[in-house]
């Protein structure tokens, strides 16, 4: 078309874009390091399924329609990128085609047809999107000017390209191609326009224009498209649409093997860390680059908010805003942050202490004045989280919300020494007697009196260690579950023992509340005992214990095979070691515990057991499986007061009560307590019994 | 014959039951008894003091002694003890007693034991028995000095209405007031309500009552029975009940004839304050509540439902 103009546009457009991207990249590189260069194949697979396949949008029953809408727009982009390249080429060389996409190849025709359909679909989807945003106004969405602008720009891109092709068609077919335009006409496949019905349809809309008018449209649409596209490209890094560029890498780089980045084991003896306040997340510059990328990638879709149990119950934790607040702080302090990192890079381990001192002082000057918790994020917001991971489960771009919250809590508890004081009693109990209730450690095995349960201290030669947990040892309601589990294990002839008074709290809640010191103390003591007994396999009835023993103890030298009691029981039923001779009467439903489901992906074993043990079969709750609704006790919240908004457990109890069931089964002592309490609050504890799966099996086994 | 001096427990001009209980015990040890009464307008109680079982009444009656002050009170007791040549000096269970007894012991170079539940005398050898370690163990203590100062646990000794004493008043000189620790104000809580320490029946309210409506309901029951009205720690912490109503390890320790625990779960700290009661009745919605492990009679039910029925039934029986 016009190589000079095209060059100019490309140079300017790409130069500005590059500059923006370089700054964004430098900012990420100035953040803390983290390793993500492993397991490339698995990463590619994730990217293919989640990012390219848009799994979390089209694979989700809820909002499937709007998920499909976005997917189509995205896939449209993927397809149309080749078209764009062709257009850029056309700016330089008349009739430019990309290799293998020329008229000689079937692929070329297929592409042309696909491109045509996609453009129509994308346009239709954009219109649908605008309609949804402006008219339907779903509550999770934020209607910003940027959102409308981007949708309009996409519409312009589609319309301009369709009009471009329409004009082309008219010039070639109606006006007998006065300018000698290029088009496909391979006799094997026919005219190009046989394959582009949408463009042809659009052409008919402007068929009234004469040849000159049509040529004018062609040229105008061409440059409109190019300019819009280059502007669009440069607009992307400036707002939520940065995700268009960063989503694929963000998913590629997401955590593997565990749903999110594991909490760091802090070196509490490190004086330097105390000095520069790097224990936990205290300043924005302490984010690692992946977390920075997460901030860039938030699409502001609000799905996280929608499923968050605290947001739903009117607490001030709005994850979209959480992300946004951090992002704003990051961008606002970008310059200083980059300078600070440059200074940090100049410090040599064996350098001159005076110089290091000066550099450190200069670095301190560049640290943001805003307190991360206080100015950027409110304390109530930070502490409301139950760490249930519902947000991470639905996030289409795999942002890892929870680790940031835990890291900030670490900073609060260790450095700022501000945290909900109700936790003090629980921390004290841990320290003194190894359980958050502070009940004498010598009573930890009282629940097992008279059951003939072996202690490891008497005979460590067993197949399994049964990890009872604090609730199972001390909480009157949960003790019944421990007893049921013992009955099942004994009936099945499993060789097991308990640690008894040697067992201590795994430290889960302390870690979630940011008290790394308490957690490490518990972990060290437990690991020492477990390793002394050479424990290999552990059965846990509590998903929190399970999670910590299995995924976090390895960080400190404890490597064990940990199995949830529902997995074990399911196996026992399947293999016939346990036989059920009666069934649970009445309708039955199951509440998926967060730490069993979303943290450890155990959804099937409990259901398999419940199907076997129930007369009427299992009714699913609306929010079940990976989208189960938290009971409210996780994240250390069991030990904190719930003073804001509605009560989470009541919310869930109401949902369960709405199912009209006579029993709700759970697989976690926290859920057991919270849901049973919720039923009591609703005065429904007689109608709806809350039972652990172990209790249901024990009651009905032969 | 041993000489036992009992410090009279007087509140708002009324002689409290512990005085008679301590004097009765003294008589069972075949001791010569005396009391010391300190305060304002206490001289009028001499007859009552004698009737309670004392053979001599040491009186320190002055306006300056109206409000409790450890220094002057200790001085009066020491003066009485020296005049009487007391072998043992017993205080009833009260904050005043706990504050004064050690001072008296230090001045007299005597041994001191608090919270005693029994005392034995074999010739000159005095031994006391008292709980320790939050009531988990009982200690038997040998007194090595000639004199013992003791604070007696509530309800440890039984009053014997059969015993009586003689009126023999001795006036003590009034000590100088302690200007270094002066009570400026007393914020009395719910005056007119029966003192927990003295009450024959105590009705206590716990978290099961939920709110003010529940508390008022339980209070009605207490009124019906002219009982002392107490509370578990939960309701004190919640701001519903005053500090001095708390029955428990860190509050008041009571040992009434009948203790009614309404909506109280029975945490160890609370039990420590009332397991000395003769009969315990508990009402709680939760059949597993630990209170049922110590209650003689337990009703599993909602106190909102049970209390009206309870009041009705009690009215029927008591007439």
């Amino acid at each position, binding site marked *: 078309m016009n190589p000079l103009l095209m060059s100019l546009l490309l140079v300017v457009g790409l130069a500005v874009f590059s500059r923006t991207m370089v700054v964004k990249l430098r900012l990420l590189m100035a953040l803390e390091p983290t390793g993500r260069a492993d397991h490339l194949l698995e990463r590619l697979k994730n990217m293919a399924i989640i990012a390219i396949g848009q799994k979390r949008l089209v694979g989700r029953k809820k909002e499937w329609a709007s998920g499909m809408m976005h997917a189509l727009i995205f896939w449209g982009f993927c397809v149309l990128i080749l078209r764009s390249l062709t257009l850029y080429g056309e700016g330089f060389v008349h009739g430019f085609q990309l290799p293998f996409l020329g008229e000689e190849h079937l692929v070329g025709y297929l592409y042309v047809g696909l491109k045509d359909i996609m453009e129509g679909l994308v346009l239709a989807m954009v219109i649908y999107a605008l309609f949804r945003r402006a008219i339907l106004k779903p509550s999770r969405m934020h209607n910003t000017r940027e959102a409308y602008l981007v949708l309009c720009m996409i519409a312009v891109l589609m319309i301009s390209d369709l009009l471009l092709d329409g004009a082309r068609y008219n010039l070639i077919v109606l006006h007998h191609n006065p300018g000698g335009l290029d088009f496909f006409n391979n006799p094997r496949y026919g005219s190009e326009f046989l394959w582009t019905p949408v463009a042809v349809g659009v052409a008919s809309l402007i068929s009234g224009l004469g040849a000159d008018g049509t040529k004018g449209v062609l040229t105008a649409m061409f440059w409109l498209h190019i300019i819009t596209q280059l502007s669009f490209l440069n607009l992307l890094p400036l707002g939520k649409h940065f995700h268009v560029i960063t989503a694929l890498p963000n998913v590629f780089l997401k955590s593997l093997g565990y749903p999110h980045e594991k909490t760091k084991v802090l070196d509490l003896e490190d004086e330097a860390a105390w000095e520069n306040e790097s224990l936990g997340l205290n300043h924005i510059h302490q984010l690692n680059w992946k977390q920075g990328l997460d901030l860039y990638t938030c699409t502001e879709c609000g799905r996280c908010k929608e499923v968050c149990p605290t947001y739903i119950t009117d607490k001030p934790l709005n994850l979209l805003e959480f992300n946004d607040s951090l992002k704003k702080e990051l961008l606002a302090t970008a310059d200083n942050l980059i300078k600070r990192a440059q200074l940090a890079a100049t410090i040599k381990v064996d350098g001159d202490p005076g110089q290091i001192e000066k550099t450190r002082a200069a670095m301190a000057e560049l640290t943001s004045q805003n307190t991360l918790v206080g100015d950027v994020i409110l304390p109530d917001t930070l502490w409301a989280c139950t760490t249930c991971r519902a947000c991470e489960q639905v996030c289409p771009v795999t942002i890892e919300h929870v680790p940031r919250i835990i890291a900030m809590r670490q900073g609060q508890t260790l450095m700022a020494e501000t945290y909900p004081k109700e936790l003090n009693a629980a921390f004290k109990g841990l320290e003194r007697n190894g359980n958050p209730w502070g009940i004498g450690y*010598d009573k930890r095995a009282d629940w097992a009196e008279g059951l003939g349960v072996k202690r490891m201290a008497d005979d460590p030669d067993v197949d399994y260690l049964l990890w009872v947990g604090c609730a199972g040892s001390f909480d009157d309601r949960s003790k019944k579950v421990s007893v049921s589990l013992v009955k099942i294990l004994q009936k099945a002839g499993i060789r097991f023992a308990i640690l008894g008074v040697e067992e201590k709290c795994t430290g889960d809640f302390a870690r979630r509340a940011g008290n790394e010191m308490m957690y490490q103390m518990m972990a060290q003591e437990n690991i020492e005992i477990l390793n002394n007994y050479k424990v290999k396999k552990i059965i846990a009835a509590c998903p929190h214990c399970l999670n910590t023993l299995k995924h976090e103890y390895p960080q400190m030298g404890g490597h064990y095979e940990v199995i949830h009691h529902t997995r074990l029981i399911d196996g026992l039923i399947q293999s016939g070691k346990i036989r059920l001779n009666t069934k649970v009467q009445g309708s039955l439903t199951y509440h998926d515990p967060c730490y069993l489901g979303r943290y450890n992906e155990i959804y099937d074993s409990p259901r398999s057991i419940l199907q076997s043990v129930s007369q009427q079969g299992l009714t699913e709750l609306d929010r079940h499986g990976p989208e189960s609704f938290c009971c409210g006790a996780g994240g250390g919240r069991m030990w904190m007061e719930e003073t804001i908004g509605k009560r989470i457990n009541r919310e869930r109890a109401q949902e369960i009560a709405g199912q009209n069931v006579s029993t709700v089964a759970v697989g976690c002592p926290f859920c057991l307590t919270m849901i049973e309490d919720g039923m009591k609050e609703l005065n429904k504890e007689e109608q709806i019994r809350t039972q652990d799966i172990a209790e249901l099996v024990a009651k009905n086994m032969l | 014959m041993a000489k036992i001096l009992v410090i009279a427990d007087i509140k708002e001009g009324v002689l409290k039951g512990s005085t008679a209980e301590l004097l009765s015990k003294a008589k069972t040890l075949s001791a010569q008894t005396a009391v010391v009464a300190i305060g304002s307008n206490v001289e009028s109680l001499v007859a009552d003091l004698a009737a309670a079982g004392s053979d001599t009444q040491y009186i320190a009656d002055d306006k300056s002694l109206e409000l409790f002050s450890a220094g002057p009170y200790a001085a009066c007791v020491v003066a009485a003890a020296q005049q009487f040549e007391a072998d043992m000096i017993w205080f009833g269970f009260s904050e005043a007693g706990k504050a004064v007894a050690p001072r008296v012991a230090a001045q007299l170079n005597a041994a001191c034991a608090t919270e005693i539940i029994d005392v034995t005398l074999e010739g000159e050898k005095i031994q006391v028995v008292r709980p*320790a370690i939050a009531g988990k163990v009982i200690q038997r203590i040998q007194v090595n000095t000639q004199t013992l100062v003791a604070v007696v646990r509530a309800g440890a000794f039984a009053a014997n209405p059969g015993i009586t004493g003689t009126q023999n008043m001795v006036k003590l000189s009034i000590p100088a007031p302690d200007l270094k620790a002066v009570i400026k*104000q007393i914020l009395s809580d719910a005056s007119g309500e029966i003192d927990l320490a003295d009450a024959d029946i105590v009705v206590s309210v716990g978290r099961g009552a939920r709110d003010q409506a529940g508390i008022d309901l339980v209070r009605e029951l207490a009124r019906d029975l002219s009982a002392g009205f107490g509370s578990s720690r939960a309701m004190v912490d919640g701001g519903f009940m005053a500090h001095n109503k708390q029955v428990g390890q860190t509050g008041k320790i009571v040992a009434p004839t009948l203790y009614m625990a309404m909506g109280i779960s029975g945490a160890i700290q609370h039990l420590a304050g009332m397991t000395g009661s003769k009969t315990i009745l508990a009402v709680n919605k939760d059949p597993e509540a630990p209170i049922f492990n110590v209650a003689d*009679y*337990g009703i599993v039910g909602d106190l909102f439902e049970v209390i009206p029925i309870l009041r009705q039934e009690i009215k029927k029986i008591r007439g």
Partner: protein
Amino acid sequence: MKILTTVKRVVDVELNIHIENGAIVEDGLQYVINAWDENGVEAAVQLKEKNGAQTTLVSIGGQDNTDMIRKCYAMGMEDAILIDDPALVSADAFAFARILQTVYEKGDYDLVITGKQAQDTDSGQTGIILAEYLQLPCVSNVISIEVMDEAHIRVSRLGDSGTEIVEITLPAVVTVSDSINEPRLPAMRGIMMAKKKKIQTLDLAALGTSAEAVGGAAPKSEIVEFMKSKTRKAGQKFEGDAAQITAQVVELLANEAKVF
């Protein structure tokens, strides 16, 4: 203002206590800071933070006490004196008070804060005896302390007829109730720094006294036997129709327990 706080190491009362042959079985027991003294430490640290008071802690015991003392450092106490002497194994409250008197007289203290009682003895004597020996005013069962000026404090006390507001002329002794405050958890940073702080350890000779002088060798009373306390047994529990069981129980109260 200079504050002296006393801190005792006691057995953890949460645990089951077993008696064998009239003595307590030590095996399995753990020891902690006396809860009421913890309140005292918190009160002292709050006065430091609010009124700039200087805080010193004194504890009588052995090297086992150092963990507890470091926790108090982590809470904010500035200095600590540990009196460690084998002759004190049979000391009673009077002997402890004499030792504390000696410590007090070596310093220039305005206020002594002790917990109102120790969790192992539940006696509540030492602080008051100390006040008597020092001839200082003493107010016990205190639930709040407010500094009026250099020489006066105002405290509230849980008395027999209500809460007493008492104005005290310093120097004085105050024993605190657990209702006075919620002791803070020693913060991590405090614990780190406390590891390096020194604890002044003295035996009786270094303190300038002796076992005989404090009466440590001849206690005024001594424990000759420990016994298990009688536990109440569960009685009858009634479930069912409220009207029916309540009537039943009232009948039993009248005729069986004879309380009505």
